[in-house]
């Protein structure tokens, strides 16, 4: 077929600076240099934690708190979406799609890759050391082992000494 279908790149974002940095880095390196004709179609996916999973860590007596937690999470999600959209527009990327999917980030991102037949998944990295990873888990680690496409881990540079 003559017209090459655009490749799909999925970028996973959460509410952290690392994600924003990752999105910006990706836009700068794979979209900005190509101005009007970027080689990838960009899907930005925000995994919104479920209220129950966020509260689960808090302990018993949490049921009454659920609606507030949910409202909070919704606010965070829309803030994340707004930031992402603004960032894309500031880099002149107009056909990016921003999605919010509820669930654990690990699964949400791997499913997004399948759904959009992405060839690349880009994620930020909190730069946790070994202990924190064991306790908090690492989405970038999980994705690099389980996503069915190439995985790019974008790291916010540590201040060089």
């Amino acid at each position, binding site marked *: 077929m003559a017209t*090459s279908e655009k*490749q799909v790149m999925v970028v996973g974002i959460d509410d952290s600076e690392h994600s924003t940095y990752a999105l910006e*880095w990706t836009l700068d*390196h*794979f979209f900005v*240099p*190509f101005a009007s004709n970027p*080689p990838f179609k960009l899907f930005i996916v925000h995994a919104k934690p479920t209220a129950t999973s966020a509260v689960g860590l808090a302990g018993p007596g949490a049921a009454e708190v659920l609606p507030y937690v949910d409202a909070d999470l919704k606010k965070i999600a829309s803030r994340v979406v707004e930031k992402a959209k603004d960032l894309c527009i500031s880099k002149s990327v107009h056909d990016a799609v921003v999605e919010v999917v509820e669930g654990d980030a690990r699964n949400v991102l791997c499913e997004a890759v399948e759904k959009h037949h992405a*060839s*690349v998944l880009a994620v930020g*990295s909190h730069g946790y050391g070994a202990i924190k990873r064991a306790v908090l888990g690492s989405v*970038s*680690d999980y994705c*690099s082992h389980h996503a*069915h*496409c*190439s*995985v*790019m*881990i*974008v*790291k916010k*540079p*540590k201040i060089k000494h």
Partner: protein
Amino acid sequence: MATEKQVMVIAMDDSPHSMYALEWTLDHLFAPFGSVQPFHLVVVHARPVPISVLQLAGPAATAEIIPMMEIDLKKAALRITEKVKDLCNKKSVKEVSMDVMEGDPRNVLCEAVEKHNASVLVVGSHGYGPMKRAVLGSVSDYCAHHAHCSVMIVKKPKT
């Protein structure tokens, strides 16, 4: 101000996974951009040190073998260099340099990133499960945690 080209380091060993990673990178990150390559590509081959290979072989291996291993490793490095050049030519990618460094791939790759000021390090993945990783170690894992730049892990799709 003319923008300096970004540098992409890609790891190359003697496995089909590396070749696949190089081909994937050329196809997805170079070919679509036509004549203006977005990155300067540096292909880094980490040549194992004979002593380290001997250790895997066990006590029966003696020091007399070392010169022969050196020759073998040199031949492998040359073969890899040839394959890389051919592939890049085929994909019309001209700005490529090849760097063969001796040592453990984990360190070699992270040092190459520093040396070339790379913005991206691309590695293939042998796709080992958690057991094999624990025993053999995983270069892609190490690099993902320790390289000072973004790391792209290219996986050969399981058929």
